[in-house]
């Protein structure tokens, strides 16, 4: 009872403007020295370890003691408040235009996906044309594509690869559709960063991105699809990619641009 009363009196006698902060304490240091001596004993003499363990528990005990209410804190008086300074020795006004959101209108991401679908529909045309022109028949490129997930296709002869295989057809179509959609999606995401005029979109989507994609394929084909790497004709590969890219780009150009929701502060 009297303890509660004295606590109340203490609270009332505090300065009005104070903040409670943790009180300085030596126990973390004692505990650290305990841990350190415990370890030093391993390297030197176990007597140090024994002393270390004792200090460790002394430090821990002291620390736990400070966690009791009103034992580990103190109240610090607040100092008077001057106004904030904005004009230091090196005051320079900030640049504001960097915060605007540009561009203000863009083609939507869905336009990129639609472009991927159109490109995916156009791309088999040059691929099939090359295959027929080279005397491999129409099924050859789709069997090669299936090699992406069917490593044992590398064991098939060229003549066998020219035959119709329903399993490889299904696999090839799935791969082609998925890749067309994913690349269309990537294209759609990249659109706001690409040039906004039609010529720029055609160059970026129809030439630059197909070339980058071809470069990546050239580097990785040997690992991800050794069959295609062995048998691909790169000029025709490039033509197929460009056709895909042009189809996707034109689809994007034909799509309607949408506005980016303006930030509240945009002029």
């Amino acid at each position, binding site marked *: 009872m009297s303890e509660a009363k004295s606590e109340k009196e203490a609270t009332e006698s505090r300065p009005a403007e104070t903040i409670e902060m943790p009180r300085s304490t030596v126990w973390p*240091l004692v505990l*650290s020295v305990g841990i350190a001596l415990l370890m030093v004993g391993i390297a030197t003499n176990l007597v140090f370890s024994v002393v270390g363990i004792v200090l460790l528990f002394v430090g821990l005990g002291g620390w736990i003691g400070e966690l009791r209410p009103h034992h580990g804190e103190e109240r610090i008086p*607040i100092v008077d408040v*001057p106004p904030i300074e904005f004009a230091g020795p090196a005051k320079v006004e900030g640049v504001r235009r960097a915060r605007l959101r540009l561009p203000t209108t863009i083609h939507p991401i869905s336009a990129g996906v639609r472009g991927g679908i159109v490109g995916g529909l156009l791309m088999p045309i040059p691929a099939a044309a090359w295959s027929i022109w080279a005397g491999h028949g129409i099924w050859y490129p789709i069997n090669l594509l299936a090699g992406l997930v069917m490593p044992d296709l590398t064991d098939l002869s060229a003549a066998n690869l020219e035959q119709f295989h329903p399993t490889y057809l299904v696999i090839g179509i799935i791969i082609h559709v998925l890749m067309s959609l994913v690349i269309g999606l990537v294209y759609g995401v990249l659109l706001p960063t690409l040039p906004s005029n039609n010529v720029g979109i055609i160059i970026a989507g129809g030439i630059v991105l197909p070339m980058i994609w071809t470069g990546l394929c050239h580097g990785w084909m040997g690992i991800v699809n050794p069959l295609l790497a062995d048998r691909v004709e790169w000029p025709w590969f490039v033509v197929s990619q460009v056709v895909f890219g042009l189809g996707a780009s034109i689809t994007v150009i034909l799509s309607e641009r949408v506005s980016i929701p303006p930030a509240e502060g945009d002029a």
Partner: protein
Amino acid sequence: MQSAIVDNSTETRMATKPPWTVYLHDYITTVDHKKIGILYILMALVFLVIGGVEAILIRWQLFWPRADIIPPKLFNQLFTMHGTTMVFFVGMPILIGLGNYFVPLMIGARDMAFPRLNSLGFWATFLGGMIVYFSFLAGDPPDVGWFAYAPLTEKTFSRGIGTDCWATGLLVSGVGTIAGGVNFIATIVGLRAPGMTIGKVPFFVWTILWTSAQIVLAIPPLSAALIMVLLDRHLGAHFFDPQTGGSAYLWQHLFWFFGHPEVYILILPAFGMISEVIPVFSRKVLFGYEFMAAATMGIAFISLGVWAHHMFTVGMSRPMEIGFAASSLLVSIPTGIKMFNWLATMQGGKIRMDSPMLFACGFLGVFVFGGLTGVMLAAVPIDWQVSDSYFVVAHFHTVLIGGTLFATFAGLHYWYPKMTGRMLNERLAKWQFWILLIGFLLTFGPMHISGILGMPRRIYTYPPDRGWDIWNQVATIGALIQAPSFVLFLVNVIGSRWWGKPAGNNPWNAWTLEWATSSPPPAYNFNEVPVVRSRRPLWDLQHPEDPDWKYEGEHA
């Protein structure tokens, strides 16, 4: 917000000066995050001098071929202690120290989440360093290299107490580092000012958060491995002794599972400081904050899966080599994003080349150089060719000095006025920068060449007919040129503390919360915990007609 500003000027504080023993007692028993931060920084600076002297001695021995200034065993001890010191007792403590001082201030908190644990963290780190250096007093410093490859650490090859001191010292300092990491995470997650969502924290705070996550994930495996070393040495276990069924290979995996995230523990806070300095000295917002934040997360995650690129030459399987090469190359993508975003922040800005910005620009140039050689070393065939050569030494010094050290100097020059209430001398700071830059390029540029010419690392001398002489001599001269830059820094830091121009609360006209209180801040940091609505609360206060929160959105 206005009322959050307090006056605690240096003049007022120094009017009644207590005796030095009061200061000593105050610092030894303190749980104030700012004082603990200063203790970390002072500790790191002392060890920086020690590690620097060791480096100069190493370079001196290598100045001439067939030199015998330093005996081989001492040479081994010097490079072991140099590496250990710089990584564990300079790099991490100085970054944790700056984080300790500024994270609570930047998020509007009064202190770290666990102030006593914070004190334990510092003392454990410091005493860990003392244990490692105790080996000098015992007459047998460790000589196993900073990564202490097994079975060199076994009793058969290291009979003295040097390796024991090394292992126990790192164990103790590891306790401190983990304590620091846990404390940072709890502080940043739990003590942010009202309105400061996780998407609005200053970028330095964001990098400290992910550094802490790496600390919590990467240090325990090292501690486990160190305990295994001690078990091998004292209780006859055979974890790392191949002759008795152990695996030296296991040590490499365990060590580098810590060791490579450690590189990012040392660089992410540096990225954070650069991301604070460049916007303020370009007078622009940080370009692409969200992408920068995602890139930081990306680096933190990827860095946990690249460790075995340090082990390409031990003979791993082909899929392992390809996998670790690919993941190592992958790190360059988020790092590149950061680099371009810093440049985009500067582009079109009103750039002020004050000393913090000068060091930040030095960082940008040199770090790209070091990063590119990192990309080279991630390629297995190149790594096979130059592994364990001076090319590797040049690479990691370029990254750690060009990256961490330059960025840390940028941060120290930026925040010194806040910590002391005084400005550093700009002329001395600029001299320091140019001397350091020139010395640095002369030291580590030639090491790339001597490495490609085949000079192995860790050799204590070399024959005169290999064409390595000139490159070693230039490197040593470079090291000697660097040394005065550190002296200038220390003179500037000490001198400006007493004779520097008064800084005021916000000398750089910066925008984050640490500048909203006095310099140095009072024990409680802020009278009232400020309310935050954007990533630049002081800009909002200064420009109520055009605040940032209108652009960022309330839910960022």
